[in-house]
């Protein structure tokens, strides 16, 4: 019995010692000693989704809802919002009816191709990423107001600002220096 007790104590001491060493080692590496936990405050996938489609009272809630839960929680509200924005909406240039379009939008993630061109829309590729120079607002206005062939509501389907006010860099970090 005493022998067993001794073994237990030795085991306990060994465990304590190893914990101590682990802590020291952590300190040396300047690593956090305790798990650092965070709570989400803001979120964004595609441009302007929360701004355009979420009602004022739900904006913070949308920002703190995981994308996997956004579709079920927000699709119906997005569809109502789309039809209020454009009461004549039938389909858009992507051939999406109101339900299909808002189902895609309500889960606010940005799709990115790992196999080539990455652009919001370049005339050929659709939603394969978002590059700095992409005119995303005009694309979204066109999809909301432009109708099936993009010609409806011409005064609302393009804001006629097509480029940034500073040239982007050809090398990392690509964004222009600040004003």
């Amino acid at each position: 019995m005493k022998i067993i007790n001794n073994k237990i104590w030795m085991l306990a001491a060994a465990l304590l010692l190893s914990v101590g060493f682990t802590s020291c080692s952590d300190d040396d590496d300047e690593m956090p000693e305790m798990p650092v936990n965070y709570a989400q405050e803001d979120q964004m996938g595609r441009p302007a989704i929360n701004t355009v489609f979420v009602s004022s009272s739900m904006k913070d809630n949308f920002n703190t809802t995981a994308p996997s839960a956004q579709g079920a929680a927000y699709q119906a509200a997005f569809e109502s919002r789309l039809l209020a924005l454009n009461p004549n909406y039938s389909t858009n240039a992507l051939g999406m009816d109101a339900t299909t379009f808002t189902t895609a939008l309500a889960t606010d993630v940005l799709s990115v191709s790992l196999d080539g061109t990455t652009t919001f829309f370049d005339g050929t590729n659709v939603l394969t990423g978002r590059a700095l120079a992409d005119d995303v607002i005009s694309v979204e206005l066109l999809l909301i107001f432009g109708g099936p062939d993009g010609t409806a509501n011409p005064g609302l389907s393009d804001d006629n600002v097509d480029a940034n006010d500073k040239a982007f860099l050809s090398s990392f970090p690509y964004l222009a220096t600040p004003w």
Partner: protein
Amino acid sequence: MKKKTILSLGILALLATAIVYAADHIDAPGVTGTSSDITDYYAFQSPENNSNIVFVANLQGLLSPSASTSAAFDENVMVEFNIDTNGDAMEDLVIQCTFKDGMVTAYGPVAPIATGTSSTLVTTGTSVSTNITTYGSAASIGSEGGIKLFAGPRDDPFFMDFAQYGEIIGGNASSFNDPGADTFAGTNVMSVVVEVPKSMIGGSGTINTWVTSNREQ
């Protein structure tokens, strides 16, 4: 003519009560004007290397040049790039960026400890650090294991005639101007830019990605 009037009224009724800012700039009351407000998100193939993807998170929009000299990242806010590699809109990999003592550190890409709206810093994978670039200084670029990192003030790459959009919503105009005027011209943001090899985030196919700002608890 009647159709246009109905449309305008529809827009007016719908958006009159909304706080409308472009992209994600100042999108919601809980984060507007705070250090965790995300203004924009970009993800694109590297112009320098077809084998890499670049992620850009911008925060704290509409900074004037003078405001940019003193703008800073919040040491209690972690910026997390979320990557879904299997199409279920849940993050399979994260890149977590923290800001301490003038340095930015990016951890990952690495599997998260938990998915959803709570995050725990994962310090067991790859990490890269560099100085946070100060206003007026050359870009400080961290590089480690094929990953590049930058954090600091930059020109806001977003462009839109937001002012005219407001006029339309307010019922004072029925269409955009041609040419329009970029409301975001001459303003800056606080940017975090991370470039990673595609091989670290799925290799091929399509990923879903989103960025979050997260406050230390």
